[in-house]
């Protein structure tokens, strides 16, 4: 497979970036998208040029490290997969592929295709946890009865890997799907009730302070999320937030 790549190159956060064209050949359909970029980087290194910087880690769709806006969609044209799980068979010989970083004011570019997603960490730090006494007399979580439906929904919300595809896909660069998943995984469980009011207020406040946009319910985040996080979580967060605001 021969391809033309239009890749965003930017030397650091303060520099102005631009799309640079690269021709690449000998790409197999069974390669992952990141392996294709590895081939490109080997070519660049052999030619004495600087390789393209991009985020990656587990390459199994678990860690949430890989990103990339591929032909205008986060993680590319496939559904329910991350970029590391995207196969080159999804493209055709002779295709031109646009590869850009996830774009949001709250995700500044570090270099080339790598972005700083620590704003997500700060939202988590604001309230995405429960306080449990671990001195030795902690109650066994399995001893607390939880409705199967609630446990399932909490587990679904907890599958969010925090990759940022929701922000990248949203026309407003909103982080509501991510934040709502992190709020929901606790809001649905009895262990999360103690800090429920403070949690949702603090996490939404942090989300707003980071400079993410407002949700306008386009639903793009849900479609592009590699873990299929549902919009129901955003509705739940809205309810939790309104309830907490009335209390607080």
């Amino acid at each position, binding site marked *: 497979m021969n391809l033309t790549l*239009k890749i*965003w190159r930017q030397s650091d956060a303060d520099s102005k*970036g631009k*799309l640079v064209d690269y021709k690449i050949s000998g790409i197999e359909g069974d390669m992952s998208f990141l392996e294709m970029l590895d081939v490109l980087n080997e070519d660049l290194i052999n030619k004495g040029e600087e390789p393209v910087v991009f985020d990656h880690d587990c390459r199994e769709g678990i860690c949430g490290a890989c990103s990339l*806006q591929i*032909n*205008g*969609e986060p993680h590319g*044209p496939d559904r329910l997969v991350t970029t590391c799980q995207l196969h080159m068979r999804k493209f055709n010989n002779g295709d031109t592929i*646009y590869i*850009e970083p996830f*774009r*949001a*004011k*709250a995700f500044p570019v570090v270099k080339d295709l790598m972005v700083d997603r620590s704003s997500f960490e700060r939202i988590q730090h604001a309230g995405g946890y429960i306080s449990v006494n671990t001195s030795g007399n902690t109650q066994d979580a399995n001893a607390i009865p939880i409705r199967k439906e609630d446990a399932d929904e909490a587990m679904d919300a907890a599958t969010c890997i925090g990759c940022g595809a929701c922000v990248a*896909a949203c*026309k*407003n*660069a*909103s982080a*509501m799907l991510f934040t709502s998943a992190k709020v929901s995984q606790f809001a649905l469980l009895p262990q999360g009730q103690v800090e429920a009011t403070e949690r949702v*207020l603090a996490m*939404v*406040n942090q*989300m*707003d302070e980071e*400079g*993410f*946009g*407002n*949700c*306008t*319910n*386009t*639903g*793009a985040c849900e*479609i*592009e999320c590699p873990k299929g996080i549902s*919009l*129901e979580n*955003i*509705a*739940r*967060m*809205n*309810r939790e*937030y*309104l309830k907490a*605001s*009335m209390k*607080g």
Partner: protein
Amino acid sequence: MGGLIKSSIARKVAMALSGLFLVFFLLQHFTINFTSIFSVDTFNELSHFMGTNPLVQFALQPVLIFGVVFHFVMGFVLEIKNKNARAVKYAKYSGGANSSWMSRNMIYSGLVILAFLGLHFYDFWVPEIVHKYVEFAPEDPTRYYTELLHKFESPIRTGLYALSFVFLALHLWHGFASSFQSVGFNNKYSIAATKFAKAFAIVIPVGFIVIALVLHFTH
């Protein structure tokens, strides 16, 4: 409560509630207008009531104007904030792959509706205010239908009204159903509520277009 005013969720809920209020008003406006194509007397009676009842004139009308102004001012504010949230645009953005045109272009359908409201106020609301509160003209309970017919004589104006209602349908198609999600309503009844909202988004604007065309072509 203080943080509520500044929060993105509060703004979202406020947009939804003001939108739902305007949807309710639209239904009421449509019901009255619809009578004009089958009963002139009923239309005149209802219009006279709405135009002279003190509760409608001095309590509900200001609330309506506030609702309209709030909805479009907040819409502009949110649009500017959202544009600022992504300073560098994508070279290639495939919005159509994951969302509807209507959901991505609410600001543009809203701007057309706003322009239409300007024309609509110029046609009906301003002359009504001048008639009642500037000229203090004697009240004539039968004048409303004649005034309505006069406005729909022009094919250009009738066409502009019809075009505006198409954009109203596009706006409602996303906005009405979306407002349920914004206020936190997402449960087993959501599918039925969304179907109702989508049907409303088609039936009411098409109904307004039918009324405009009937008034234009039958007189």
